[in-house]
């Protein structure tokens, strides 16, 4: 519909306006009400996103009806892959782009199936989390700053998702990186938070470098275009009619690998995963929004968007899948021993992101066009569901933290079922979804991923056995996921009830108390409704959305109509896979129950016996230390050397010039000795020399 096309710009523009208003008027004028611009803008963007979604859905329905003959006879067949594109502003135009010798960038927004789905999810979850944050950030000094930054983040993320060219995508990319930095380091007076923000920004920057190189490589090698449609078309064209296929294929693979670098950085895959656990220094709503639901999924979105490129470069795809597999396993192993609740959730995010990459890498063209689409759909579906249940888990953990007076070490509290009833139930829902408990949302999406890997393992031309190995890794990781999730759950909500003393000092009178630790009765520590209501909404989605969209293939049918994806074929549910993964999940939950509820001292004994492995996992496999000694220290040394070089040698040279001139001047000082006759002699001598020169005609 042309209506929606005109209003697409509202989706990024409303949060941007909210950001500006909050930044300008927040601290003085709005103060405690600084959240209103953000929430209103988020809601407005959500409404427009729904309209766009409906418009695309309508177009897809028309196409389906046309091909089933149920639509009225029309002249032209509707577009199988509908999208709403509108270029609002021509930003950069250099050279002659039409003739292929220039750059053209515009502020163009594109709403097709993939973008509409992403926009919907981003705005919905963003708004919910903003409402949650009203309660969480209550009374904080930087209240207005927080909501300004969150609004800015929403603007960047929606720009990223709705962009129709690589340039605008990169703009959104950098924008979310910036907002992530601002929000992680929100309490910047804490050195740990400032360091974590810096780390996040710098590590993602490394990935962004590769990303930019990939974009430029695509621009230079395959027709000078920057917008998706033209790039994909020209890549296909160039490869079709080229005689030098080998070399061009090499360039394409290189470009895809470089693009993957960006995704590796932003979505925290191995080896650039080190920033995500440290990013938990930020406020919990930030962790939920950025590091669970939206920003880290940008990499997945980007690779899904570039499927037409990746499916022509199977070498790059296998690298993507491998990195995903490594990340999933690594993160799961580390999460087994962490004592910080948020850290556990952070590593679980890493693990689930690894799953998504594994899925994206499994969509090899040699297994058939539909397999590509299926794999991409699996990744996007998992992204979708993961957003909901991970956000839920994070917000619940935030609620726990809020109630416990900012204590998040699981060893210091326990048995909070009775104390925090609402939080307990929402957390349980999220944990079940994450573990892949049968029939909940995580189950469906994880199952599809395993299915994709299995299919690639069976039907791919190259690397088939490797994909099977990855499938096995995914299965094992599923079990580990269930285990550590429920370990965290049992440590927090079961067992002997312990409440740290900070809970009572920090508590600002939600229900009145006497300020003494009570074991007999449950004190009123539950979070306010403004926090629990979003939790409940998310819990409903976490539980139900998988079932609603997965087996019914509603999600799949919708997103499959994204331009660039090969047409899908009818799906069949793989019951064997479902059975196997259910068994794995349930056994993981069972082991956790036995170790942490039945035999509470078993974990410590096991840790003592397997001390080496335990320490390795607890210390995150020393990856940070490795980076520190092999990369950071040499760089720091080089920086120090460069600094000293600049100070001593370069500055010294400059100073030397000055010193030399000064020295020279000092040599001439005794000429001015105050004796008149000496001066007169100098004058006469000069005159004589001049005369002699004149006479000799020198």
């Amino acid at each position, binding site marked *: 519909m042309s209506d929606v096309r005109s209003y697409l710009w509202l989706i990024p523009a409303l949060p941007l306006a909210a950001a500006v208003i909050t930044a300008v008027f927040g601290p003085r004028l709005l103060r405690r009400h600084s959240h209103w611009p953000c929430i209103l803008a988020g809601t407005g963007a959500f409404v427009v996103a729904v309209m766009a979604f409906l418009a695309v859905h309508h177009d897809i329905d028309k196409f389906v009806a046309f091909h089933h003959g149920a639509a009225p006879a029309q002249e032209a067949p509707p577009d199988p892959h509908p999208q709403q594109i509108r270029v609002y502003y021509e930003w950069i135009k250099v050279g002659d782009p039409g003739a292929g010798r220039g750059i053209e960038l515009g502020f163009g927004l594109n709403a097709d199936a993939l973008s509409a789905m992403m926009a919907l999810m981003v705005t919905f979850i963003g708004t919910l989390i903003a409402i949650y944050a009203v309660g969480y950030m209550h009374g904080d000094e930087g209240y207005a700053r927080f909501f300004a930054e969150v609004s800015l983040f929403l603007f960047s993320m929606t720009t990223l998702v709705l962009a129709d060219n690589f340039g605008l995508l990169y703009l959104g990319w950098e924008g979310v990186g910036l907002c992530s930095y601002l929000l992680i380091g929100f309490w910047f007076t804490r050195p740990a938070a400032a360091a974590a923000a810096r780390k996040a920004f710098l590590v993602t920057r490394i990935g962004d470098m590769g990303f930019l190189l990939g974009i430029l490589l695509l621009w230079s090698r395959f027709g000078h275009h920057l917008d998706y449609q033209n790039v994909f078309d020209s890549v296909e064209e160039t490869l079709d009619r080229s005689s030098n296929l080998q070399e061009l294929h090499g360039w394409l693979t290189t470009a895809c690998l470089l693009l993957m670098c960006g995704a590796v950085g932003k979505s925290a895959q191995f080896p650039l995963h080190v920033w995500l656990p440290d990013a938990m220094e930020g406020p919990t709503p930030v962790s939920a929004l950025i590091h669970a639901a939206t920003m880290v999924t940008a990499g997945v979105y980007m690779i899904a968007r570039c499927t037409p490129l990746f499916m022509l470069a199977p070498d790059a795809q296998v690298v993507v899948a491998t990195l995903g597999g490594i990340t999933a396993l690594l993160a799961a192993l580390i999460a087994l021993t962490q004592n910080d609740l948020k850290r556990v959730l952070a590593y679980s995010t890493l693990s689930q992101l690894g799953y998504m990459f594994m899925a994206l890498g499994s969509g090899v063209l040699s297994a058939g066009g539909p397999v590509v689409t299926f794999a991409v759909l699996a990744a996007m579906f998992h992204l979708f569901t993961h957003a909901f249940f991970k956000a839920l888990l994070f917000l619940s953990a935030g609620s726990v933290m809020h109630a416990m007076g900012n204590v998040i070490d699981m060893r210091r509290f326990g048995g909070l079922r009775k104390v925090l009833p609402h939080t307990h139930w929402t957390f349980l829902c999220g944990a079940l979804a994450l573990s892949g408990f049968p029939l909940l949302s995580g189950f469906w999406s994880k199952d599809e991923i395993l299915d994709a890997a299995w299919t690639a393992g069976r039907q791919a031309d190259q690397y088939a056995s490797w994909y099977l190995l990855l499938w096995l890794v995914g299965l094992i990781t599923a079990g580990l996921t269930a285990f550590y999730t429920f370990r965290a759950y049992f440590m927090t909500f079961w067992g002997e009830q312990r409440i740290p003393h900070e809970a009572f000092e920090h508590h600002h009178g939600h229900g009145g108390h006497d300020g003494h630790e009570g074991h007999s009765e449950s004190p009123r520590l539950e979070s306010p409704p403004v926090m629990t209501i979003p939790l409940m909404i998310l819990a409903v989605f976490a539980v139900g959305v998988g079932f609603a969209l997965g087996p019914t293939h509603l999600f799949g049918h919708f997103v499959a109509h994204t331009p660039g994806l090969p047409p899908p074929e009818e799906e069949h549910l793989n019951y064997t896979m479902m059975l196997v993964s259910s068994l794995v999940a349930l056994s993981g939950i069972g082991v956790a129950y036995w170790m942490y509820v039945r035999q509470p001292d078993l974990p410590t004994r096991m840790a003592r016996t397997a001390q080496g492995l335990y320490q390795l996992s607890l210390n995150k496999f020393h990856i940070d230390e490795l980076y520190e000694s092999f990369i950071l220290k040499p760089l720091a040394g080089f920086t120090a050397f460069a600094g000293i070089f600049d100070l001593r040698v370069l500055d010294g040279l400059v100073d030397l010039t000055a010193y030399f001139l000064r020295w020279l001047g000092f040599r001439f000082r*005794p000429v*001015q000795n*105050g004796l008149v*006759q000496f001066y007169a002699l100098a004058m006469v001598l000069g005159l004589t020399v001049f005369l002699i020169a004149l006479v000799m005609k020198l």
Partner: protein
Amino acid sequence: MTALPLHYYLIVGAILFALGLIGFLARRNLIIMFLCVEMMLQGVSINLAAFARYRGNLQGQAFILFIVTVAACEAAIALALILMLFRRYSSLDVSKWQELREPGEEPTEDIEPLPPAPRVPPLPHLTPSGVEPEHRPEESHV
């Protein structure tokens, strides 16, 4: 009969000028320095007179008169200033005035000592007139 060539006079003027220049630069007595300046002016006057003669013009001689005038004024003022300077340090040494040197430089001082003053024989002591000299009765032979 050929006349003396012009440049003979110019040579004499040049020699006087050069001698005056050396004296001005080398001598430290203020008065002798100014005498050397006057000698330089004399050399220049000879030059001017020679040119006037060999040109048949009186302009050179008029110029010399002005030189003499200015020399007279200059001598008057200069000598007055010399007197003032002498009153300051009671010395006519031009090297005593070196305060306008570069700050941080040492003042230029003379190292070689002067030769000792020649011993002036004592003037004969005359008895004052109108005063009866002392008598020494022992020395009289009366």
